């Protein structure tokens, strides 16, 4: 790599992790943050990015993005999604292990890393399988997965066959200091469900997933986290009581964190009224009270990250009667904008909102990104907070056009995205 020096001048620099919020120039040398405010000795830039009127933040980290490769390349590819993410200001994507084949061998980890490098856009980190083949029966080779680069372990949305195997996976993961990423779901209670069990499931006659499917699992998981001492993270909580249980556990000093997916902050079960497949999510959209509870949890910090829960699909996946459609929405395009919308809606202040998609997820994943400290690799997002765009099929870069936010006016437009000090997206060239 030739020696590059970049000056990002005149922008409002927001680095929540280091409590920076002000007009500062930012200097990048050889892919790393070299200085803030004053140029380092002997600095002369090859490139100057004019950030006047723009906001400069750490590159976004998306805690959960299905890239569909390997295994479901008809939906999307690592190449298409890493580039879409870069255009959305995201510099790091975390890929869960439910690919096909499952991420339970170093070979799959290596394949994903290799493809992501080829794409030359957002970086991809992986979660390894908690159990072999995600079948929930037998421990995976966690040490090997960790050595291959997995930043944590998870059984994705697949159930574990018993509380005993859960206990043993926690103990084994704790042996290597691996964080376990948990989807709180009691499989027997949620079986066959495709919507929140409540007013709408009764009205539409759709099999429901009760709130207790989540709270029962959180209670059980918390007990085993305390028993084993493993560091754990609850992925995509959907209910207010679950947020409260996690808050209580955190207060008690249990090493546990949690996040929420963007759709659950804006939508509720009521949006499914006309059997709209774009509102089919697993875990499901819950009640309006739950939505408020999640927003409060995000504000208080109980939920320290916000993620897109990106699930791109081909059009046919949503063209069927509701229960037969595939759940999830394509989300990397709108992660930044829907985070900014929380500020617009006066839910929170800009630095706090940015923290939930930068330093928050970095801490959960225990990765050295998500802030702009001198010496850090230069992962940077530069956006225009005063510009907006309309989400539709043409404005989405992801290969998956499935979204419940079609037609929404999105605040904030990404101008530049830098990863490792390289410009991986520029609105001028796109």
């Amino acid at each position, binding site marked *: 790599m030739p020696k590059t020096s970049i000056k990002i001048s005149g922008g409002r620099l927001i680095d929540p992790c280091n409590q920076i919020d002000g007009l500062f120039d930012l200097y990048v040398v050889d892919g790393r943050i070299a200085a803030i405010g004053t140029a380092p000795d002997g600095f002369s830039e090859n490139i100057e990015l004019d950030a006047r009127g723009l906001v400069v933040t750490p590159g976004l980290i998306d805690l959960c993005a299905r890239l569909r490769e390997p295994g479901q390349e008809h939906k999307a590819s690592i190449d298409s999604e890493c580039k879409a993410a870069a255009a959305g200001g995201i510099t790091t994507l975390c890929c869960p292990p439910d690919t096909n084949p499952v991420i339970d061998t170093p070979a799959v980890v290596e394949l994903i890393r290799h493809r992501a490098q080829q794409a030359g856009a957002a970086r991809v980190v992986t979660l390894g399988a908690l159990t072999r083949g995600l079948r929930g029966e037998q421990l995976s080779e966690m040490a090997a997965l960790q050595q291959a680069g997995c930043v944590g372990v998870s059984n994705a949305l697949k159930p574990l066959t018993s509380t005993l195997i859960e206990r043993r996976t926690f103990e084994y993961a704790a042996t290597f200091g691996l964080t376990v990423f948990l989807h709180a779901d009691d499989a027997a209670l949620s079986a066959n469900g495709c919507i929140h*069990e*409540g*007013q709408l*499931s*009764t*009205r*539409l*006659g*759709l*099999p*429901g997933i*009760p709130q207790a499917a989540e709270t029962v699992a959180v209670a059980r998981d918390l007990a085993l986290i305390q028993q084993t001492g493993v560091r754990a993270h609850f992925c995509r909580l959907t209910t207010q009581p679950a947020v409260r249980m996690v808050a209580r556990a955190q207060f008690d000093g249990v090493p546990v964190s949690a996040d929420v997916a963007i759709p659950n902050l804006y939508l509720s079960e*009521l949006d499914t*009224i*006309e*059997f709209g497949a774009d509102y089919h999510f697993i875990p499901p959209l819950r009640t309006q009270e739950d939505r408020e509870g999640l927003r409060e949890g995000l504000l208080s910090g109980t939920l320290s990250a916000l993620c897109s829960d990106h699930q791109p699909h081909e059009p*046919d*996946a*949503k*063209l*069927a*009667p*509701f*229960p*037969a*459609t595939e759940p999830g929405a394509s989300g990397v395009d709108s992660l930044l904008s829907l985070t900014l919308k929380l500020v617009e809606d006066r839910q929170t202040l800009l630095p706090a909102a940015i923290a939930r998609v930068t330093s928050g997820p970095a801490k959960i994943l225990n990765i050295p990104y998500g802030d702009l400290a001198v010496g850090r690799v230069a992962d940077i997002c530069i956006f225009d907070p005063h510009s907006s765009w309309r989400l539709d099929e043409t404005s989405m870069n992801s290969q998956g056009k499935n979204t419940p936010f079609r037609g929404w006016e999105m605040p904030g437009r990404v101008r530049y995205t830098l990863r490792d000090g390289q410009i991986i997206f520029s609105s001028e060239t796109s």
Partner: protein
Amino acid sequence: MSVNNLQIRTDGRLRHFLSTEGLNRGLLTEILDTAESFAGVAEQSVKKVPLLRGKTIVNLFFEASTRTRTTFELAAKRLSADVLNINIGASATVKGETLLDTLRNLQAMHVDMFVVRHADSGTAHFIARHVLPHVSVINAGDGRHAHPTQAMLDMFTIRREKGADFGRLSVAIVGDIANSRVARSQIHALNLLNTGDVRIIAPRTLIPSHIESLGVRVFHDLREGLRDADVVIMLRLQRERMKGVVLPSEHEYYQLYGLTEEKLSMAKPDITVMHPGPINRGVEMDSQVADGPRSVILQQVTYGIAVRMAVMSMAIQQKTPQDGDA
């Protein structure tokens, strides 16, 4: 909750019949009135009217059914339509693409109406959203969601038995509400027709959450729920549910919720007893009640044809239904 109504044309007439929810009292009354005019047709020696001559109706059944399909077929034939029955086994997993492809292929044959039954809730809505502008869809049962023609034939039966003023009636629905598309459609229809008191009676395992939001009063005791009722509708209970996790045994269900003459004595003396059939005798009700003077179970089947004729003739693109009155 606003519903973007697929079912009603811009001029207020029926476009599709997917659910009783989302319709209005005027349309439901029109269905009942039109059915009344067709009820006479069946009693004539020539049981046909030429209303839908030249129209093609496809019965698209993805789930097994004998009675419903037969009455739809008879109704279509009595309206002089051409009928095509397509049964796609419940066991065959039908993927979205296949369903849409099936639909498009049939539409290419210039079909005017689909009568659809499917195990997934929302299928009729899905199909209605994807058909050509001149094609109508009648829901013949989708998952646990809706079975609106069954509900309307029940309303027709009630109106014949009790008169048009639903406001003074207490109607009780007993049994497996949680899994019943019939019950949901009945509840919406009864409320749209301003029924004074709609009750459901079942153990908690058979009652779905937030059912009160549909406008019903919930009872767990059959005697209490039947007190002074004018109409009782017994729902069919799938036998396999009897040994599952929702009910301990047929015996206990019958003891608590089986309709007997003794329990009926709590209701008004002239109570009307209904059942969408087929009956599990000795489980949902005993034979004495099923075959007794207050039971209208067989009339329900007969009325089913007139009601389906009414819905088909109203939904299919044609002249106003009044023009069709014989």
